[in-house]
């Protein structure tokens, strides 16, 4: 008998299955639905977070002072050689400016400051930035007005929320006070929407002016580098790290600064979400295995119900192998049908989960994996009953009522 014809017989058997054996595939339906919808949560989170991290800019590298665990790639205990946190300096920044792979460099000086408009005060982060690097290093766009210029002194560019939430007033071209020093707002930024590294609540002023404002001309808060298109962010980050290690006379182990790329942050968060996905996947797999036991049970029932039919097939000359394949195909098909129903159900379930605020995303891959899983579970759980079916002696099978 050809496999295709055995498959046709299997389809026929399934069409006439008893309700009881159909009920048992509910296990697979639920198993597949839970696998797909649980994994869709972690996929959804992944997507949401990488959207939010988009605010960092893929080719932007940030250097801050203090030893970085990100560089050591672990969560081990801190080194015994206590790291006296040596601040980053504007001198450091100047030394890094000419390293190959650096397109733009922005030595920033920021701090909290009281911003006053009319009679309203608000404590905001004020960042002194180098005007020629600003738009790229902060990965922002101007919505209204203009950006900072090299010749600017007491002017500010403000984030979207500063206008729309904090002061609820159109500040463009209006005077404000920052810690009592007068400034004029020349530009407003587009909303970034990003949760991490966002600029929506920030006020940007020229670096030189910030040095006066904060009375600090030596130490920088952070150095932000835009990596050149001719290099990769990782290669540039490595070059920067090596240069700073030399400048600070430290080694990898005593490193007193941290170099972060958008990719490295994303990597850390992604791997945390992946672990969550794995955990959810394991839970869902358990329910699928329980579903598999259900299919096996259904197949035992089905084999029993079809004992006479097995006898008939054998009396007509079907071999043990052909009967075996017939039942394996049958259970594989049951798995497939259960998987399809489960996939449908998972769409409903993930919509429900979204309503509770967790992002979900069902990708074609995920559907494919869910279906593949359910077919495999069907086949595997059908093997034992199918073997039983194949080994029945023809007379015994025929005698069965």
């Amino acid at each position: 008998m050809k496999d295709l014809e055995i498959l046709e017989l299997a389809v026929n058997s399934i069409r006439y299955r008893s309700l009881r054996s159909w009920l048992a595939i509910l296990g697979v339906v639920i198993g597949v639905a839970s696998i797909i919808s649980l994994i869709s949560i972690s996929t959804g989170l992944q997507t949401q977070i990488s959207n939010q991290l988009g605010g960092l800019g893929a080719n932007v590298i940030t250097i801050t002072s203090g030893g970085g665990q990100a560089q050591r790639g672990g969560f081990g205990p801190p080194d015994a050689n206590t790291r006296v946190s040596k601040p980053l300096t504007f001198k450091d920044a100047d030394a890094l400016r000419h390293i190959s792979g650096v397109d733009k460099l922005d030595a920033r000086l920021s701090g909290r400051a009281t911003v006053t408009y009319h009679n309203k005060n608000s404590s905001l982060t004020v960042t002194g930035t180098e005007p020629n690097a600003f738009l790229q290093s902060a990965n922002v766009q101007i919505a209204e007005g203009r950006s900072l210029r090299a010749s600017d002194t007491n002017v500010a560019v403000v984030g979207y929320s500063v206008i729309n939430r904090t002061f609820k007033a159109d500040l463009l071209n209006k005077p404000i006070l920052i810690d009592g020093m007068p400034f004029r707002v020349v530009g407003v930024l587009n909303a970034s929407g990003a949760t991490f590294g966002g600029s929506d609540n920030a006020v940007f002023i020229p670096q030189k002016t910030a040095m006066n404002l904060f009375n600090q001309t030596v130490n920088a808060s952070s150095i932000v580098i835009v990596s050149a298109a001719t290099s990769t962010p990782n290669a540039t980050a490595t070059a920067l790290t090596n240069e700073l290690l030399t400048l600070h006379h430290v080694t990898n182990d005593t490193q007193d600064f941290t170099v972060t790329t958008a990719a490295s942050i994303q990597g850390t968060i992604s791997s945390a979400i992946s672990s969550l996905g794995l955990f959810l996947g394991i839970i869902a797999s358990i329910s699928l295995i329980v579903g598999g036991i259900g299919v096996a049970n259904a197949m035992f029932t089905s084999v029993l119900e079809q004992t006479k039919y097995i006898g008939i097939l054998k009396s007509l000359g079907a071999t043990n192998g052909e009967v075996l394949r017939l039942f394996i195909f049958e259970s594989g098909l049951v798995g497939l049908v259960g998987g399809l129903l489960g996939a449908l159900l998972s769409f409903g379930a993930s919509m429900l989960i979204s309503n509770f605020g967790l992002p979900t995303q069902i990708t074609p891959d995920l559907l494919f994996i869910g279906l593949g899983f359910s077919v495999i579970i069907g086949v595997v759980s059908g093997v034992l009953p199918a073997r039983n079916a194949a080994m029945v002696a023809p007379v015994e099978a025929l005698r069965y009522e």
Partner: protein
Amino acid sequence: MRSAQKTVLKMEKVNKIYEGDPPFQALFDINLEIHEGEIISIIGPSGSGKSTLLHLLGCLDKPTSGEIYVGGSQVSKMNDDQLAFTRRETIGFVFQAFNLAPTLNVFKNVELPLVIKGVPPAERKPVVDRLLEVVGLTDKRASMTTKISGGQKQRVAVARSLVNNPKILLADEPTGNLDSKSSDDVINFILKLCQERGITVIFVTHDPRIAAHTERQIRIMDGKIESDIYSRNTKRRDLR
């Protein structure tokens, strides 16, 4: 001259003991030789071992001891697959309980042995159609077998048993569940088709009217052959 005829089935000192508690011996030292084209009836009381004998001849079961030859091949030397091939190539069965596949319609039931044999679909259809016509079921071809009468079921079974052109047809009380009109039809179809094709037929039956239409009657009693008679004046024509 019987001895000149080709032997298609042969039993040598065949014993069958059903395992169980207690074990039960259903056949004792059976010797039997059946020739090509013979029409035979096996008669005997219920429980005498007729079905057991037929199952052994049809390779559905294995003897406890002794040797069986089907078309010259030694059954005890065959593995499960070879037994299956022997059933599909050389033997047709008709059972008292019809044994039709409940999930298949009339056409597909008759077609099933050809499917199992691996005959391509295009070649199957004309053969099945012709047999359905002969047994008068052309108009029922698409019916499910649960929706037709007993007589019609057994005609489906007859068509199915012959669709592969077997050398031997084994019929175990084929009319046991039928009224007399349907019984006559079924027997007539079997006799007509098998005589046309030179197929050896073995009927297991209680019905003396069927036995009267066979040229050889084997009587079984308590697992032994009590008599094996060739009747000269067999009415080799339709029952009516």
